[in-house]
């Protein structure tokens, strides 16, 4: 089977995992998760240089930090299917005594997670710290982070953005999930973000775009391109255009499914649009 087909199958299975996780507990955030599925699959299957197993320090490997922690369903699915913990554990999402908390945390010891996130705006700072630790350790691996576009309304992001360029943190690739939606509506309605390219360039970043953030090939090519831009004195920002709710037609292009689970009937429709590929958990 061609590699692209394998990855697309992987994406389809992750979409099923997302829908099934949030449906089971009638809570969680499917919209942003579905929109970032290709990104996570590309990152963990094609881009990250990862060691076997998991240790918190993550020396001599690439690191990833999820800043918009509410899209935990996609993170958990891809971590499990990349070997960090048993896929069956997705059954425990948001349940009592689970390692799969509503928002990702180190507190329960889930392999693959290096920082708690959920309260927005903090992940870029953490990624910068990890990137600077890599420089101190003479470790030339890359630190990646992902942020929601709505999350950029938090002030700490811009403290971090100013610092990252000012201090030449050029082993950092921060991707912005540009889906134009947040809980209360479109970002344009809630608080317009203006030109993010102009903003990040003004803050001294090397800015590039992935215009088709839900095309696995485009995402892989974009991330590879971003990697070639590291080590040149500037942090790298990827503006990744995605569709919230991608892959489930009634969830697409709306903020309505930001934090809402499908009912039984809606789940069936969503799963029918994403037939089982790698095997359900």
């Amino acid at each position, binding site marked *: 089977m061609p590699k692209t087909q394998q990855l697309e199958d992987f994406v389809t299975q992750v979409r099923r995992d997302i829908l099934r996780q949030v449906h089971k507990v009638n809570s969680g955030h499917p919209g942003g998760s579905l929109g970032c599925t290709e990104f996570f699959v590309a990152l963990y299957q094609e881009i990250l240089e990862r060691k076997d197993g998991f240790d918190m320090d993550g020396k001599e490997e690439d690191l990833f930090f999820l800043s918009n922690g509410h899209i935990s369903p996609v993170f958990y699915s891809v971590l499990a299917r990349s070997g960090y913990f048993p896929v069956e554990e997705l059954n425990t999402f948001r349940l009592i005594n689970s390692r799969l908390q509503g928002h990702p945390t180190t507190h329960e010891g889930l392999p693959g997670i290096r920082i*708690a996130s959920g309260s927005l*705006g903090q992940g870029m*700072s953490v990624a*910068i*710290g990890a990137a*600077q*630790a890599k420089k101190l350790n003479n470790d030339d691996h890359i630190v990646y982070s992902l942020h929601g576009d709505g999350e950029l309304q938090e002030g700490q992001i811009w*403290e*971090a953005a100013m*610092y990252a360029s000012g201090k030449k943190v050029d082993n950092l690739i921060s991707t912005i999930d540009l889906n134009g939606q947040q809980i209360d509506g479109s970002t344009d309605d809630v608080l317009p973000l203006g030109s993010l390219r102009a903003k990040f360039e003004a803050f001294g970043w090397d800015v590039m775009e992935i215009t088709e953030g839900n095309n696995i090939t485009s995402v892989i090519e974009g991330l590879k391109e971003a990697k070639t831009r590291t080590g040149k004195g500037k942090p790298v920002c990827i503006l990744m255009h995605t569709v919230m709710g991608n892959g489930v037609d009634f969830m697409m292009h709306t903020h309505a499914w930001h934090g809402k689970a499908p009912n039984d009937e809606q789940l069936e429709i969503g799963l029918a649009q994403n037939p089982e590929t790698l095997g359900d958990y």
Partner: protein
Amino acid sequence: MKKYIDTGKKDTRSGFGVGLEVLGKTNENVVALCADLIGSLKMDAFIANNPDRFFQIGIAEANMMGIAAGLTIGGKIPFTGTFANFSTGRVYDQIRQSIAYSGKNVKICASHAGLTLGEDGATHQILEDIGLMKMLPGMVVINPCDYNQTKAATIAIADYEGPVYLRFGRPKVANFTPEDQKFEIGKAVHLQEGTDVTIVATGHLVWEALLAAEALQEKGISAEVINIHTIKPLDNEAILNSVKKTGCIVTAEEHNFLGGLGESVSRVLSQNHPTPQEFIATNDTFGESGTPDQLMEKYGLNAESITNAAEKVIKRK
């Protein structure tokens, strides 16, 4: 009664600076971060000796806490430095999520705590920081009493794995604890043995408690003085053993009585050995501009207040 000698007034923040300088030489994993207050935090020597291990963050404390959390991933032991107000209240959620809940080995080092910051006034005089930090699960809270002890505490916390809040201050105060003392986190220090009243104090109020004990002795009252440099975890045993002997207690701190040392002591007593207690602390108020001595007198945080509180609490036995 033991006699304590002030070997010369020094600021506790300088004790931190010297402790950090020592760590620069002895522990290669220690790194330092500062939010544009190098001089105030006395971090110059560490920076001069270890320029690659210092991160000037600029005036962005939230970012500093996040970067500190990130630096632990890779084995570093970050010491953040800024004023107590900007080390806690300003960045509470960053500490809560990225450091405390994430279990990161960050040392939050906070100078200019309390009223003795002086003339800058209430915007900078945080009196709520002990409460904020002790409420965070897993956070160790330390408030050493003088220069020597702050230096020892700074060195000691590098060997402890987990988040720590280290609180110290701006003014020059009596330096009376042993040079090169061993600092044990969570272990109270008995300074005076006594039978009539227990005085437990933290930070700048420890010296005042010793002065109060002398004044009380002149009145024929035997006061036991305990230095509680670690508010969390609290040395419950030291407190309970003392009050079982004396039957009453005064707690003294440069902090609001809501959320401070006194409340922690109250909880231990009410659960184990209910005991009359008086609080030397600020009374749910903000501070104001003034000299440190003027402020400590106006807000009742000195030896005279402790003496009066001791006499009052003895009558409640």
